[in-house]
């Protein structure tokens, strides 16, 4: 199991409910989603075409790519509808005080 390193990415208050924000960790674009007060982190770049999912529309526990409408499960990163066919990676999130921290494999 690879070592996970947590990165402080934002304050809890920075991301409103059912909103998302793009965060860059190293050279990686990560989408942080506030789903009814719970935070999730997944790849921000759609696996179909180059688009930021943080600009997408969130409905239920899915995020929809703004470019071509591919949907992903925010909790698992799994593709829920085409045109994407490849799942996204998800990352562990922990809240410390009012800070959101995202775990990435340490290099």
């Amino acid at each position, binding site marked *: 199991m690879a070592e996970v390193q947590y990165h402080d990415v934002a304050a809890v208050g920075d991301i409103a409910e059912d909103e998302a924000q793009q965060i860059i960790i190293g050279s990686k674009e990560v989408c942080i989603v506030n789903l009814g007060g719970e935070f999730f982190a997944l790849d921000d770049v759609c696996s179909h*075409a180059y*688009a930021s999912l943080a*600009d*997408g*529309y969130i409905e239920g526990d899915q995020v*929809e*790519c*703004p*470019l*071509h*409408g591919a949907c992903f499960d925010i909790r698992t990163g799994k593709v829920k509808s*085409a*045109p994407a*066919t*490849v799942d996204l990676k998800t990352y562990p999130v922990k809240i410390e005080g009012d800070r959101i921290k995202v775990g990435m494999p340490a290099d």
Partner: protein
Amino acid sequence: MASDRQFVIIGAGQAGGWTAKTLRDQGFDGRIVLLGDERYPPHERPPLSKQVLIGEAEPEVTHLWPADQWAALGVDFRAGARVAKIDRAAREVETSRKERIPYEKLMIATGARPRQVATPGTELKGVFYLRYIGDALMIRERLVPGAKLVVIGGGWIGLEVAAAARKRGADVVVIEFAERLCARALSPDMSEAVLMLHRRHGVDVQLKQSVARFEGEGTVERAVLADGTTLDCSVAVIGIGVSPNFELAAEAGLDIENGIVVDEHGRTSDPDIYAAGDVTNHPNAFLGRRIRLESWENAQNQAIAAAKAMLDKAEPYAEIPWFWSDQYDANIQLVGLPERWDEIAVRGDVAAGNFIAFYLSGGKIVGAAGINTGRDVRFCRRLIQSGAAATAAQLSDPSVKLQSLAKK
């Protein structure tokens, strides 16, 4: 234990592929024979006029599923198989190699083909239509820096080719017969925004113009316009629309009217034969009329609905049409295809190419179109679907969240 049922699908594009996938997703364990007349596994076409033409991706990007996912579906896929005849009495299709394949249910997903122009000189080397993977690769090879591209047709295909060619460093002239671009799909203000987009990127767009002939010694060298102007031309692409491939269905005696006539379940006039995608003339409950759509989403979702109906799990296909195009850094989206409206409300900056236009009729949104506002356009579909009331003042005010207009 797999059943001995056999379903046959003609056509391995978006609609044919999704029919096969849906049959499996819905638990069909019989044999699925998928006949494709190209040599590629089921694939979609949008990237052919975009990433593949630009050279950012290879044709494999069009395959609907990664090889392992496709293999796992267990489809008897026959590449390069052309169907010559549907024998409804025997419930068999016959291929051009005289092989007869029995079916219990049949899906016709034969798509469409480019409409041909009568312009003299189209037989010269370097003059292309764009529909198939091979077309995209041949055109791409000729789109070198300094190439002189002449595009006939200022519709989606022509404009996407123009954008890709500019990215590859070619000089581009687009010749459009109508007085504005994409006149069939776009309102006049959107046509203007798209025209500006191309002019900003250095494309010479000529409206109310046509090509009289192509000239050259074996290979195209010049395009002579109707007004007598001569353009240097090392490569030409013609994109003036498509014709549905309904001949097989027509010869089999199925009802045809601008495509294969189907109901909301994709059923043709023969209850064991279905059709989906570009080839169908189908009812659209939202628009209140029959329509033939040439769109990626229709090919997918109509096929999904029809595949369910093939298994007697019918759910009517009733979607509000949605369409996208990618040109340069602009993602253009349309929803609703309204034929008329009372008012247009615009939110955003048209000149900067970042806006959404809402089409209103009787106090409701009946359609929307935008550039680089995909989230809003797609959310609009929900507003249209729910019949939410909205005013032009609300819609053009960026401080009014669209979500707040949704019916509670």
